[in-house]
């Protein structure tokens, strides 16, 4: 396990370094530079030069990338153009909102999806299996921001059951939870269907395997076999999918935060784009990339911990 962990972590570090370098190169290759983006086309050459120097843009590209990594390791992602506050501080201030949203969304949808998938597999071809099947396919691919807009329209504006804007008063936990209901519903909905299908498929596969037949032959109660043997293994793909799906969750969070005017990483990026606050945009993108790489790494490690075949295969 230790060898696998080291190898997997090493790969993640390499991917992170490559991703950031690539991001840097792409930003430099495309037309439009951060300085004109921030100052506008009419800025005086002196002003441009000053900002270029402040951001280190007058250095050769490899030096810039190197400096960026050194600064990043020190936790320095540059400063906000307007307020001069450190970007890392701003991002950390918004991060909890996004993580709470994503966490709540997965928190309600994964257990429900696993339960539905499990029931569907055990009662195969029953009414509930068919119903789950149709509902899953229907909700899987509907974009989260459409669900956000529709639920905002129906449940907040028309029916007024839930609040429409914001994240609730700080320090008032019930109020904050109340504000989380609709956004978390919108992001989680498609995951219920997705996870249900996934768990159903892997449950059916596992229930047909030899060790389950052996367990049955020993006369173990069916419920025991389902929950202790089959489900434990059938959940594994779900972990991978949530890990890899972190990019989707983050994307969905961007839209949902805008729709419900919630603070968070997504709203931060959009607001910084509209105000041309370039360092904050870069910082937020960087952070979401880091979260994504970390989540895929963790899900791989959990899988390896649960399934010795994975960690011994490489």
């Amino acid at each position, binding site marked *: 396990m230790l060898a696998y962990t080291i190898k997997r972590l090493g790969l993640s570090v390499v991917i992170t370094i490559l991703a950031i370098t690539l991001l840097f190169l792409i930003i430099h290759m495309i037309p439009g530079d951060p300085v004109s983006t921030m100052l506008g086309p009419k800025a005086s050459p002196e002003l441009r030069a000053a900002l270029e120097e402040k951001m280190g843009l007058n250095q050769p590209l490899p030096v810039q990338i190197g400096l960026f990594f050194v600064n990043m390791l020190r936790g320095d992602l540059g400063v906000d153009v307007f307020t001069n506050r450190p970007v890392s501080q701003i991002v950390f201030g918004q991060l909890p909102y996004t993580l709470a949203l994503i966490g709540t969304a997965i928190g309600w949808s994964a257990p429900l999806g696993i339960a539905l998938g499990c029931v569907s597999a055990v009662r195969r071809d029953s009414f509930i299996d068919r119903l789950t099947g149709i509902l899953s396919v229907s909700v899987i691919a509907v974009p989260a921001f*459409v669900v956000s807009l529709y639920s*905002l329209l129906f449940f907040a504006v028309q029916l007024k059951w839930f609040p429409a804007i914001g994240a609730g008063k700080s320090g008032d936990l019930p109020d904050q939870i109340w504000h989380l209901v609709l956004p978390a519903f919108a992001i989680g909905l498609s995951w219920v269907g997705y996870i249900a299908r996934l768990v159903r498929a892997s449950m059916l596969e596992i229930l047909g395997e030899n060790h389950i037949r052996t367990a049955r032959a020993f006369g173990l109660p069916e419920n025991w076999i389902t929950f202790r043997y089959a489900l434990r293994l059938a959940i594994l793909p779900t972990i991978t999918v949530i890990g890899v799906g972190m990019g989707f969750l983050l994307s969905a969070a961007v*839209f949902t935060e805008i729709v419900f005017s919630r603070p968070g990483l997504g709203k931060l990026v959009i607001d910084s*784009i509209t105000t041309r606050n370039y360092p904050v945009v870069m910082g937020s993108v960087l952070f979401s990339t880091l979260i994504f790489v970390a989540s895929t790494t963790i899900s791989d490690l959990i899988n390896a911990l649960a399934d010795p075949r994975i960690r011994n295969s490489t």
Partner: protein
Amino acid sequence: MEQTLKTRGETAQIFHHLVRDPLGLVGLAIVSIILLSALFADQIVPYDPVALNIPDRLQGPSLTHLLGTDQLGRDTFSRMLMGGRVALQVALPTIAGAMSLGLLLGMIAGYGPRWLDNLILLFFDTIRSFPTVMFALAVVALVGPSLNTVILVIMATSIPTYGRVVRTLTLSLKSAEFITAEKALGATNSRILGVHILPNVLGPMAVIAAMDIPTIVGLEAGLSFLGMGVKPPTPSWGSLLNDGYSLIRNTPWPIIAGGLPLIITTLGFTFLGEALRDVVDPKLRGRGGKK
């Protein structure tokens, strides 16, 4: 495994299977309607989608305006129809580009030497580590909103989806008996790749493409909703939703009109993709949907 999947007879067979599956039939019908309505949008729209008509603004649905009008009196139904064009204008080139590059890189990775395989896999993993929307926003922040930017960014981030599957298929085909036989007969690498491996990879590619289109259409709509895609007054489903969002307390209809075609498109292509997968390759089960 058959040498080529897409001979004429088999294409007809696939179609036959597709139509017999109720899910496939519904999917095919929805997709055809979407394609046709986008293709002939300018002939079937009842009103000019960008024409202003202030006296008739913010109306509810009626026989004259099927889905009502927006804050400038523009006919929402006409805007919805024209929006389908933008959606396909983005989705089709994106899919074509991502699929071609994915095919090329995937076949090189699967067929080429081990070090090249590792290098390309690392490249795929790196690209996949950018959350698409965040990445798109960063690029748009620099070059300004445009559909071409949206196409390029989504294309780039979709390459690994195709490339990884092509690589796996190529790897398993590489050691298939009929390939070994071809090699023994002295076939060149380009012949093996072009004549034998490519046709066998295309079927699964079509399945992934069908499943991927809703994701891309959704992304375009999402970015246009954020004002990062189409420029006004061009109607797209995303800009319809954006208009509707700012009018949410006045009229529900633009939001309903922008969201409904997105949901229908998604369902149509997903049904079609699922049915296609069952016909083309049952082994691909569970590959579609989220990346």
